[in-house]
């Protein structure tokens, strides 16, 4: 065995510790990943159900799954503005493509129907916040323009500051605002100003202005892509 402070000894021990530690971390991540993704899926479904039904009370996991399966799923083709029903619609997800940075062609939308009539349409939104990508869902009323509910379920914004975009009181102020103007341009934004004076503007969160402004921008960006399909929905061409 070489002396304690020799270069060989130092290198050997450094490499050994690095190997053992990386094995430890890899095994932990590999073993725990399925449990974590199950939770991520439940949280996604909770966000969709909350947007579709205003279920503000704490639902059990079984109740969330049931409420999620009760929603109708359409897969929207963004380029053509058409949608289709698929057998595995509830399992379809475009977030992996978004995470990978691949252009998205198809997104799932969720219809909340009562007695065969659509009362809410839930569409996924995502886009850049201050540091991270913000993910969420926007629910529209049956007119396919007025906001009924908004949920941001995943983000990496500053804890205690940017994460106030998840504050239920602020999200409630989105309700009743409209996304498209008479020309069909997505004009919704989050900006400073008197609340209620402009149907397209939501007041920003003071202290978290960059993140909250970004949420308005990303919703308008996505709804510019959704416009062809939503217009067909409004005209009754999509069921």
């Amino acid at each position: 065995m070489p002396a304690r402070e020799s270069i060989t000894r130092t290198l050997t021990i450094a490499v050994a510790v690095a190997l053992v530690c990386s094995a430890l971390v890899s095994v932990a991540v590999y073993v725990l990943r399925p449990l974590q993704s199950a939770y991520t899926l439940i949280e996604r479904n909770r966000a969709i159900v909350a947007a579709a039904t205003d279920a503000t009370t704490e639902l059990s996991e079984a109740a969330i799954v049931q409420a999620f399966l009760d929603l109708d799923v359409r897969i929207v083709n963004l380029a053509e503005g058409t949608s289709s029903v698929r057998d595995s619609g509830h399992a379809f997800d475009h977030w992996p493509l978004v995470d990978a940075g691949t252009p998205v062609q198809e997104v799932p939308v969720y219809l909340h129907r009562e007695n065969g009539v659509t009362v809410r349409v839930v569409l996924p939104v995502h886009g850049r916040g201050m540091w991270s990508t913000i993910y969420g869902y926007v629910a529209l009323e049956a007119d396919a323009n007025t906001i009924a509910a908004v949920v941001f379920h995943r983000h990496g914004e500053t804890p205690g500051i940017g994460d106030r975009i998840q504050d239920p009181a602020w999200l409630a102020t989105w309700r009743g605002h409209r996304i498209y103007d008479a020309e069909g341009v997505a004009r919704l934004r989050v900006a400073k100003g008197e609340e209620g004076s402009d149907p397209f503007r939501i007041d920003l969160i003071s202290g978290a202005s960059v993140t909250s402004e970004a949420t308005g921008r990303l919703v308008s960006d996505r709804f510019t892509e959704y416009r062809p399909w939503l217009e067909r929905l409004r005209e009754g061409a999509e069921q």
Partner: protein
Amino acid sequence: MTFLKHLMHPVLHENPVTVQILGLCSALAVTSSVKPALIMSVSVTAVLLFSNVAVSMMRHIMPGSIRLILETTLIASAVIVVDEMLKAFAPEVSQVLTVFVGLIVTNCIVLGRAETFALHNTVVASAADAIGNGLGYSLILVFVAALRELFGAGTLLGMSVLPLLDDGGWYRPNEMMLYAPSGFFIIGVLIWIIRAWRPEQVERPEYPPRQFGYRDDP
């Protein structure tokens, strides 16, 4: 007997928070309610135990030149494993603790115990020292969190203790308690009380107090 001594000494006489004033950042940040404080306590204790045992096992073969890097690597690995486990088994609490689990790496208690104790003591003694320091940290954390949750929200572990005015009770919650500065106030008052009761815990001044006056004065 020495095991018990190594275990209890850091809880009572050398408490990492109130005597050594370490780990304050997380003690302020995660103590607005009891549940995250409990989970944080368990996490820090687990990391401490792992790092103290690992460093103690390697104390005869660790080259001095890369000692600190090796210790940090071991601590960082333990923190990642703990963080991943929280995300899998306690995801809601993990979202409350956010970055503070990752910041256990920089918690001076962990590296401090590895450097000052585990490098010079047997594995069993180091394990006792780790659990003792973890308990000492947990004791303060949970106490502060209990005070803040009780007076800030009228609850303990989410269960109503003081019925709130809003719900037809009589208690008006002190919202100040839920903000980080009140964590500072409580820890400050706590240190004051402990040192008034046990004056031997007051640090001696490092330098003689400076005399003010004219230079020619004797």
